[in-house]
């Protein structure tokens, strides 16, 4: 049986990728961002998951609004890096696990999640901004990718609760796959930021820290909020945290946070967090 071994939340702002490509890890202004990824990358290197599921959003890179899916599962043998206008970043394509992806698509639709499926759509910074800081990729990426795209850019956008339920359905789908595979689940986006209008540059660290607390201890509070609340508290594009909630849904009800870092330098905080499920059964009363 395939099983989910943990989850990672990460921002996906393109500047992460720019700093990575320009090797700014020793630049004092950037070093805290790079350091934030080290514990999560180390965990991945130790656990060696066979597959990483990534809940991400496309930024009108590979999908256009003439047909914009609310949720779309990538079912393909490999995924390319998108050229977002400045040329393609120099990473090899990442392999998919085709049969697992087909299985997840089948299970989701039979579980009342009428997702779209896609192939031949290169993935943009929603995936490839943070991924090189989490996984090695020369000459090849060590894990297969199962990308799940979420519409976060054209309203109507799915609610936090809907994304959480998607995560739960993805967990059921993975756990019903007969092959013994280990799977890590990543949610990208956020935290507070706004990239348009006179309110561009908005941040709210207080809300971000509260979100990270609630994420572990009381996700229900977040699930009861509306997108308008996320926009008010965390800026228009701060609503990307719904992809963290999809990842949360794919984890056990009780989780613990193994790592959490937060660094706000310019316009979007660099947040990285690592989670594992705790023992789901209530602790037995001591035998003596």
């Amino acid at each position, binding site marked *: 049986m395939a099983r989910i071994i943990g989850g990672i939340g990460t921002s996906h702002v393109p500047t992460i990728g720019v700093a990575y490509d320009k090797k700014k890890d020793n630049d004092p*202004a950037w070093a805290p961002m790079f350091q934030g990824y080290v514990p999560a990358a180390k965990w991945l290197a130790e656990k060696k998951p066979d597959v990483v599921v990534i809940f991400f959003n496309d930024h*009108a*890179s590979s999908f256009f609004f003439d047909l914009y899916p609310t949720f779309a599962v990538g079912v393909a043998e490999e995924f390319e890096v998108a050229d*977002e206008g400045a040329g393609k970043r120099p990473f090899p394509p990442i392999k998919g696990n085709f049969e697992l992806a087909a299985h997840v698509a089948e299970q989701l639709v039979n579980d009342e999640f009428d997702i779209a499926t896609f192939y031949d759509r290169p993935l943009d910074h929603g995936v490839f901004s943070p991924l090189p800081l989490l996984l090695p990729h020369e000459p090849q990426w060590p894990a297969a990718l199962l990308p799940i795209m979420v519409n976060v850019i054209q309203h109507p956008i799915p609610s936090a609760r809907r994304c959480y339920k998607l995560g739960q359905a993805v967990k059921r789908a993975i756990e019903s796959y007969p092959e013994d595979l280990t799977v890590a689940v990543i949610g990208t986006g956020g935290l507070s930021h706004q990239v348009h209008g006179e*309110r561009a540059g908005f941040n709210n660290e207080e809300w971000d820290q509260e979100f990270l607390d609630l994420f572990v201890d009381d996700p229900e509070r977040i699930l009861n909020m509306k997108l308008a609340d996320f926009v008010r508290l965390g800026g228009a594009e701060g609503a990307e945290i719904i992809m963290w909630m999809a990842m949360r849904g794919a984890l056990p009800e009780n989780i613990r946070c193994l790592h959490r870092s937060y660094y706000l330098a310019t*316009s979007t905080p660099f947040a990285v967090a690592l989670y594992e499920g705790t023992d789901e059964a209530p602790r037995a009363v001591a035998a003596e």
Partner: protein
Amino acid sequence: MNPQLEGIENLEGTYPFDVRQSYRARKLNRFLWHLRLPEYRAPFVANEEAACRAAGLSDYEVNLVLKRDWLAMIKYGVPMFLIEKIARVLKITNMEIYAIFRGETFEEFLKTRRVPSAA
């Protein structure tokens, strides 16, 4: 009204991009979307107005592009993620555009940031 967006109209300087905006600005948005492809970038760089006209943009839309009126584009129905595509071609950074949205010079904008040297 989208129930998830109740109250969003009270937020200043915020323009939710929805299916209504999307449909209104579809020609301009598709034009900007194409700029992520080299085969569309080259004719645009060679002659911006001719490329706009060839895409069937209205006079208003052509002017938005030629005048780099980013804020008016947002209000018209262009999401920032498509402004990004033309900005990459024009070698303008997102943060320079944020400053313009706010009516600030880039230097003024940087002063509002925690770590300006990361820009």
